[in-house]
């Protein structure tokens, strides 16, 4: 570990740092924040690091306070940057809960040994596929990779069952993709795990050879399919669901490949920090996010997959039970470096 590597140097830095920080303290003594966590028992105030945007989860924090009295102080940021922050903070992290956009960031914090095991009552509400095998984080909503297609240009029957077949020459000039997009890269990581490095490289090279239209995000892919500029594109399910909810005649539909990375379901999720003094309150928070009400909110407002059994998906979304997902451990999706290397070698980046 870093903190034990050079104790002498660190000790010196510690003293020096204290002096250095004394300057602003003197200037700003009045502005310091109130760190007043209750000394006895658990606090009803939780510090949450949220990689999910305020726009989407803000209402859930409001309902949390109304229903349970738990007040959440939320730091919004990028999931991976918050994961790196938690890793640097170590034992002294002020955070109680990490609410991440993706399983990879949770896996990274888990691998640092900084997450506590969640109570079984919380974990058991969610299919084991969508939570950590060590029980240290739990998925709260899901999003699926899909093949979006223009219904006027392609029929469902023409679309292959395997994502690998899109590397065939018949798809030349017809595909759109976003190789810099995080969700796409997670899917390529999943392909490496299920098919191996060589198959993945060949697939990427095949797609590149088909001269795909390159986009910076999923939304642009969807719009381009709708405009008929491309026939198919690789994106997340909810982009299409949102557009179809607004316009029933929207000319884009989604296709699921069978049991491969083309239909990967990744999750956003929650982990409780081992250093938190508020384990029970934090578990209560996780329970709230997994409540029927919150899960319906994800389904209706964001068109994500609710992960609590019995909560319906949005009518515009194909239920999880109707397609076959690849068999991958979501925690392992944090290994993206090899993926970037492959993308680069294949000339995709």
């Amino acid at each position, binding site marked *: 570990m*870093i903190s034990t*590597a*050079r104790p002498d*140097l*660190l000790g010196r*830095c*510690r003293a*020096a*740092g*204290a*002096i*250095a*920080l*004394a*300057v*602003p*303290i003197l*200037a*700003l003594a009045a*502005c*310091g*924040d109130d*760190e007043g966590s209750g000394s006895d028992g658990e606090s009803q105030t939780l510090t949450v690091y949220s990689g999910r*945007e*305020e*726009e*989407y989860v803000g209402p859930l924090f409001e309902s949390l306070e109304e229903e349970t009295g738990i007040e959440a*102080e*939320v*730091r*919004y*940021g*990028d999931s*991976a*940057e918050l*994961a*790196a*922050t938690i*890793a*640097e*903070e*170590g034992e*002294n*992290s*002020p955070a109680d809960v990490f609410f991440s956009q993706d399983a990879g*960031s949770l896996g*990274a914090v888990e*691998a640092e040994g900084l997450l506590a095991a969640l109570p079984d009552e919380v974990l058991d509400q969610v299919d084991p596929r969508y939570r950590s095998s060590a029980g240290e984080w739990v998925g709260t909503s899901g999003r699926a990779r899909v093949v979006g297609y223009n219904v006027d240009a392609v029929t469902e029957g023409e679309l292959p069952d395997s994502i690998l077949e899109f590397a065939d020459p018949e798809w030349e000039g017809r595909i759109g993709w976003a190789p*810099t997009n*995080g969700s796409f*890269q997670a899917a390529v990581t999943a392909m490496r795990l299920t098919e191996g490095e060589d198959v993945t490289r060949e697939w990427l090279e095949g797609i590149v050879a088909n001269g795909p239209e390159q986009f910076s*995000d999923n*939304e642009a892919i969807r719009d381009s399919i709708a405009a008929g500029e491309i026939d198919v594109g690789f994106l997340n399910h909810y982009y299409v669901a949102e557009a179809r909810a607004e316009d029933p005649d929207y000319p884009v539909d989604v296709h699921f490949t069978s049991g491969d990375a083309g239909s990967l379901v990744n999750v956003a999720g929650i982990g409780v920090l081992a250093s938190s003094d508020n384990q029970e309150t934090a578990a209560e928070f996780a329970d709230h996010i997994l409540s029927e009400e919150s899960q319906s909110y994800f389904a209706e407002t964001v068109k994500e997959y609710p992960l609590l059994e019995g909560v319906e998906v949005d009518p515009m979304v194909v239920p999880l039970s109707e397609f076959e997902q690849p068999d991958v451990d979501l925690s392992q999706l*944090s*290994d*993206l*470096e090899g*993926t*970037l290397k492959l993308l680069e070698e294949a000339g995709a*980046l």
Partner: protein
Amino acid sequence: MLVAVAAALPLAYLVLIVAGSADTALETIWRERTAVLVARSIALTVAVTATAIAIAVPLAWFTVRTDLPGRRLWTVLAALPLVIPSYIGAYAFLSATGPQGLLQDLVQPLGIGSLPSITGFFGAWLTLTLFTYPLLLLPVRASLRRLDPELEEAALAMGRSQAGVFRTIVVPQLVPAIGAGSLLVALYVLSDFGAVSIMRFDSFTTSIYTLYKASFDRIGAASLAALLVALMLVLLWLEARTRRREALYRSAPGSARTMRQVNLGRWRWPALGFCGAVATLALLIPVAVLVYWSLQSFAGSVDWPAVAAATGNSLLASGLAATAAALCAVPIAVLAVRFRGPFAMAVERLSYTGHALPGIVVALALVFFGTRVVIGLYQSLAMLVFAFVVLFLPLALGIARASMLQVSPRVEEAARSMGRSQWSVLRTVTAPLIAPGVLAGAALVFLTAIKELPATLILAPIGFETLATEIWGATSVGFFERGAVPALVLLAVSAVPLYLLTARE
């Protein structure tokens, strides 16, 4: 002393991390890809700096030394792009030239089907040049205004042409200012993430971010950051070569007179065209895009109380940062110039580390020390202000140092010989002379701190929304229209100190 420690924190962090796992670190550094990235980053840095010089030096000369029509207006307009954060500028350009963009709509009737894509090296070069050249413009202008006209007059009297005088007399005297400004531009380019990521140009910084984001590899990221510090040292060495002749005060008796203005004559129109072209690209296009977006958002609704609160927070944090940075910069500048102590010189150089590193690296370094040393202050306003000082101290220090160089020690000696104490001389003689420079430095810190994002997200107190975090919050979910209003407010509040800085002549 305190400032020295502050300046050394990021470096100490990198040393701790890299030394903790030297093998992994070396492995990252020696990879072939690292060499490619170094080459790409250097290429971008050289290209941007060279172009920025080519833009800033003529602009400075036109606005200071010629009878350019509307000189005062151009003075402010030319400096204004400084307040546009590179991530906003890059995004505005990208969307303006995109398939449904503002510019595309304008050229469509002219029969231009689609504008060329500006992503990659070209886009990164264009946006970084346009939004960093003011960092060069300001010191070059300041230097031009202080030039002693006697040298030029002597040369003209001996039959040199105007252009010849500019080349042989003016430019050599500007070299230290160009050097100092180029250093700021180069360090900005090396550490910038916003523009290069939006323009999809793979550079050193994007790789550091990727290592955090994609692989959660803090050691690899720290190793690359350490390499960035090495690049910075090379730049510092290059810049030091431009300041060989340090004394910039008059050697002859008497005081400098005001400058003679050059009559541009028929060259007025090309000069105006040049200023206009720069202002259109660097100011008009991004602002037009923002106004266009914000008009669209008025159809929806703007959360004015939130924008107002964010504005207050931005002003508070950046204002404190500017004050603190100025207070730290003065003693260092005095010590480094007047007493040339090796310690003060070392601190001055060291303080550039914070500026050369990407914000996320400095933020994580402060997280590391903050949670181990001053846990009570972690994620307080004091911590955020401290982070800004670490990040932006060189901006204040550079200008303070330059003004200190122009104070003739003889003035101070005269005062001392009349029985004043050292401290009294510093207070009553030196301080008033360097005050404008120190104020300019503080303004520069203010302008830069107000648009800072990564350190603000991690180190600000919870719920402390600034204009920059508001913009980020809106754009990260794709609501560019909603981000446009805080962006325009950011430009407006930044323009005030910049106006005072340039128009107060």
